[in-house]
């Protein structure tokens, strides 16, 4: 039915779409396990993608861009972590604020540097890996491998080390954690920073390893899909790999389908799919994500103290 080339193309696209989702959700799992929910993932992605475009534009060095963008992610994460642990802020409010701030900064910077709102000029990208499968070629992004490695490492940290136990204690019962001798504030601060670092890498990936330029709309809700994936994967970084692949596949499938209808012979009443119907394909991954989460959600167990500010007596 569907030729091998199509399957391989879909697989390449899915793996690419998976990467930013996996990075952001693995980071967010670490953050949420410590008890902080960071709604500002989207904003962090925008800021780091912007930074990547700027750095690569001026230095033509994508590696430097990756490094600096993830540091920007780390810094934003630390800001979020500081506000939500030491200052007991409402985490949803701060996260929303970060998202708004990021969009403002991005627009201002785009206009200042390149005189337009639309997007940055094209920049240098990292090379893809090409793996031949039969007649077809599977394109694999180097950062995708990094993402999987980081997810596995995060799982090991959380589930197999004393550090992981301490982190989980902060998210389940901060009072007991404090009694155990864990500094809850510092742990939450650091873990929100680490989550920001991962998300920064995700934002940078969008620019230096995928699209090759920056635009304000490029993150298109990926930060929130990552949040959906966190609950989908039941706060387990290994399951998050599967979840990210699934959500990545939805996105890839919608893209692939919208291109496919341009080539196929369509009956008269379906020709709208080539014009105004293209918007429907864009809506598809969000709906599929939502439905998946709705079906699976009842069975998961979130950290007990998630999102609640911890107030020391």
């Amino acid at each position, binding site marked *: 039915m569907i030729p091998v080339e199509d399957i391989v193309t879909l697989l390449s696209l899915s793996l690419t779409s998976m990467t930013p989702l996996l990075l952001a959700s693995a980071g967010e799992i670490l953050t949420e396990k410590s008890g902080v929910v960071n709604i500002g993932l989207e904003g962090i992605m925008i800021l780091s993608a912007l930074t990547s475009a700027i750095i690569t534009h001026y230095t033509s060095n994508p590696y430097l861009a990756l490094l600096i963008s993830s540091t920007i992610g780390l810094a934003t994460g630390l800001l979020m972590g500081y506000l939500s642990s030491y200052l007991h802020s409402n985490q949803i409010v701060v996260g929303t604020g970060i998202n708004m*701030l990021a969009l403002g900064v991005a627009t*201002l910077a785009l206009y200042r540097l390149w005189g337009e709102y639309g997007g940055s000029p094209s920049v240098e990208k990292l090379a893809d890996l090409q793996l031949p499968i039969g007649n077809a070629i599977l394109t694999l992004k180097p950062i995708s491998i990094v993402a999987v490695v980081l997810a596995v490492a995060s799982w090991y940290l959380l589930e197999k080390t004393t550090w992981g136990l301490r982190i989980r204690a902060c998210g389940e019962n901060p009072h007991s954690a404090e009694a155990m001798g864990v500094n809850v504030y510092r742990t939450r601060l650091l873990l929100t920073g680490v989550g920001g670092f991962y998300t920064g890498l995700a934002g940078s990936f969008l620019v230096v390893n995928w699209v090759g330029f920056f635009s304000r709309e490029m993150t298109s809700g990926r930060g929130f899909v990552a949040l959906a994936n966190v609950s989908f994967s039941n706060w387990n970084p290994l399951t998050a790999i599967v979840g990210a692949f699934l959500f990545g596949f939805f996105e890839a499938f919608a893209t692939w389908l919208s291109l496919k209808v341009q080539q196929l012979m369509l009956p008269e009443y379906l020709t709208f799919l080539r*014009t105004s119907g293209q*918007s429907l394909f864009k*809506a598809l991954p969000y709906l599929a994500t939502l439905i998946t989460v709705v079906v699976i959600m009842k069975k998961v167990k979130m950290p007990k103290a998630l999102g609640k500010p911890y107030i020391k007596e």
Partner: protein
Amino acid sequence: MSGKPGILEKLFENIASRRREYGLALLEVSLSILLSLIITAFIMILMGYSSDLSLVAYSVMFSKGFDNASYLLSRASPLIFTALAFLYPSLTGLFNIGGEGQLYVGAIASLIIALYTGNSLLALIAGGLAGAALGMLLAVLRVYRNVNEVVAAIMINWALFNISMFAIATYLTDPSIPHLTRQVPDTAKLPLMDLGFLRLNTSFLVALAAAIAGAFLFYRTRLGFAMRVSGLNPLASMIAGFENRKLMLASFALGGTMAGLGGSVLVLGIVHRLDTMMMSLYGYGFLGIGASLLGRNNPIGVVVSSIFLSGLLIGGQWIETRLGLPHQVADLIIGIIVISLAIPFAYHYMKAVLKVRRK
């Protein structure tokens, strides 16, 4: 007429007895606005704009943003609604980030009904109902499937943005102007009232009425009391015999209605037609969150903050035409206001730290 002075006296007494609380809220809000203006100026300087440019920008922004009261109030009306859409569920302890999507369906439902019936009241009701249905959906997912309402709302917002675009482009466009929809018939438009010094858009009155009705509901009725208790302490509310689930559903339905009505007044009272890129709709829902937080979670405060933020946005357009700066400077200011508003604890924290240091 004898009853009225009594109510007014009571109101003043109420305000007087809470003077300290209101004063503190006002102080926090003013400080966060000031802080945000300073940080934004700093960011602009960091980006290489000359340091006095931000001062010039602010003076243009504040002088031009607030000088046309008629325009200001009409711009503020949909924002008041989307802010209330965030506010009412948040009083019950829920976050309605879905105001954006609820606004889209409200606007489209109103436009369709206005086109077919030419009746503004029916169109308003349709907009409110469409928003309410979508709000209820979020509440049902949260209550019965334990799906985080923020994540669900964002997915729905993005999906609806694209679906609405499709619906507008496919079914509603004006054949002679393909990028615009057909116009709301004159009979269904919300009228302008000429008060001499002000051409008041009826939309603003509708928004004001919604805010006052909400204040009454939440602070003067049993249902509103139950909702607030359930938001502050779900356990206590359950023990008191209130049904938390039903209260959540009700507050989300109310929030959705508000955002839907926001879409209605936007279509019926202000823009009268939509465009295929949804430029006239996009962003009101998100901005409503900021307006609600700046209004210190108080329906009347929300009216004031929505007017203030609309002034900033209008001012932002002026700095674009006057100074060639992007109007998104206004978005930046609003984002930083929101972040700094979230830290009322900073003040207490600093006080505590200072105390410890003194010892």
